[in-house]
């Protein structure tokens, strides 16, 4: 049984189809990169995974649960920009990952103290201890994105959605963010979906790379058909296939 299952999903805005017949099954702990040309529905697909939008047809479910009608605790998200709260300090932003769940939005007493301790541990992990009391606007782009990821993880989501998280960063920072994300994944075994424009990034980080494109194209009416997943690459082992076939079929070792 797969962890995230997308079955026969269609999405259209008005009369304009955006996505058609999208099917994909994702196992727990997989890192899925989503690539494709602009306007091919990858961001729409992510918004549907996020339950910010509901598909016009089809079902998206996590761990066999009911399809969600609005974003909630099951899903964590990091956008390219505006993913942290500018009026909270770095530490408060992390604590918000726990505090926002409460009816008043604030933690009090011993719960607050414990949350602050956990927040400091998280800040340690994402390397932002030295700026804990600063406001996000004074951080660099890479630090803001690390904070956004830390904040999302604090709420302990089932899946993490990244919408071009490193798109606005310079190449050097981007590389160190790749390193950071790889380490974080090794620790948490989180199921991740990442939309990216950067093919290299997609293949480097992802276990699988989903390519969105339009299988049918009407030159007289480019908007007539929607996009779907046209390729589903196995990106493990640097994209070279069948490297683990012996794990699956040990008997093959004796064939020769």
């Amino acid at each position, binding site marked *: 049984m797969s962890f995230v299952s997308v079955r026969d999903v269609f999405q259209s805005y008005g009369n304009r189809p955006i996505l058609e017949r999208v099917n994909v099954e994702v196992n727990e702990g997989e890192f899925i990169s989503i690539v494709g040309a602009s306007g091919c529905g990858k961001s729409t697909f992510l918004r549907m995974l996020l339950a910010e939008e509901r598909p016009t047809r089809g079902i998206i479910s996590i761990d066999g649960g009911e399809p969600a009608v609005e974003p*909630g605790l099951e899903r964590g998200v990091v956008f390219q920009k505006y993913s942290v*709260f500018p009026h909270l300090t770095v530490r408060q932003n992390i604590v918000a990952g726990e505090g926002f769940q409460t009816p*008043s939005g604030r933690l009090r007493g011993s719960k607050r103290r414990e949350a602050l301790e956990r927040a400091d541990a998280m800040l340690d992990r994402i390397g932002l201890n030295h700026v804990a009391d600063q406001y996000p606007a004074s951080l660099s782009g890479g630090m803001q994105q690390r904070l956004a990821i830390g*904040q999302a993880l604090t709420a302990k989501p089932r899946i993490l959605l990244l919408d071009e998280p490193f798109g606005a960063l310079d190449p050097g920072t981007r590389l160190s963010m790749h390193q950071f994300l790889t380490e974080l994944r090794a620790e948490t075994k989180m199921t991740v979906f990442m939309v990216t424009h950067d093919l290299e990034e997609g293949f480097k980080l992802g276990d699988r790379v989903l390519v969105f494109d339009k299988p049918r194209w009407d030159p007289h009416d480019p908007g007539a058909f929607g996009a779907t997943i046209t390729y589903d690459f196995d990106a493990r082992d640097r994209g070279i296939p069948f490297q683990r076939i012996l794990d699956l079929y040990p008997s093959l070792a004796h064939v020769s």
Partner: protein
Amino acid sequence: MRLINRSPARPLAVALAAAPFVAVAIAYAIGSEIRLAANPSDKLLPAPGTILDTAIRLFTEPDRRSGEILLWRDTAASLIRLLGGVGIAALTSLIIGMLIGLLPYARRSLSGFVAVLSMVPPLALLPILFIVFGLGETSKIVLIVIGITPFMTRDLSQRVLDIPHEQIVKAQTLGASTWVIAARVALPQILPRLIANVRLSLGSAWLFLIAAEAVASDVGLGYRIFLVRRYLAMDVILTYVIWITLLAFIIDWALRLLTRKAFPWMEAGL
């Protein structure tokens, strides 16, 4: 060097800032001098010295009949009306603006109504307010509230809508309820704007206050100005005008200071 790229150095900048004030003062002094030379009992442009004497008298000498210093009584009465009206307007616009900005249902039902309401000229409603609320304090405060609430509401609701949608979605993925999003995400980011709105609307608030006091009142800065107008007491009127300007300036300055102290995150990026 292009004119747009030139900026004055410190001493010249101060002199340039002071120049218009000095120019107005000199122009007034000359005008007053010419008129007084022609007719020493001219009341239209009293000499600066006369205004100063009148100002000292107004600020320190009690009224012979009531034994109170009228200027301070007027100031207190006007400030209570002004701050009462602005306070009520700020609170109302904050609540309605948040509702419109956050809840699609409230937006559908209220935003058109507020847009129409903001087109009603408040001063045209003044007679109605006097008829409904009488000539007391209520009608004056209500005039200020009616005058500035609609446009403050429109601006605040727009500011709530301007909060990046990503932030609202992010808060939801952290498990925040509608209430928590309102109280912990939207409200703190809107408060600086509310204060900015109050600063902008204080000008109109003074206008409505003085208009209401001029029409029907027995105490207040606007009342006094329109009362002494009958005796052509320009020295009193000018003192009051300068005093009102000073009060408005101090309130504005205090609010600006409050914004800087209370919302350190706004300047974090600078």
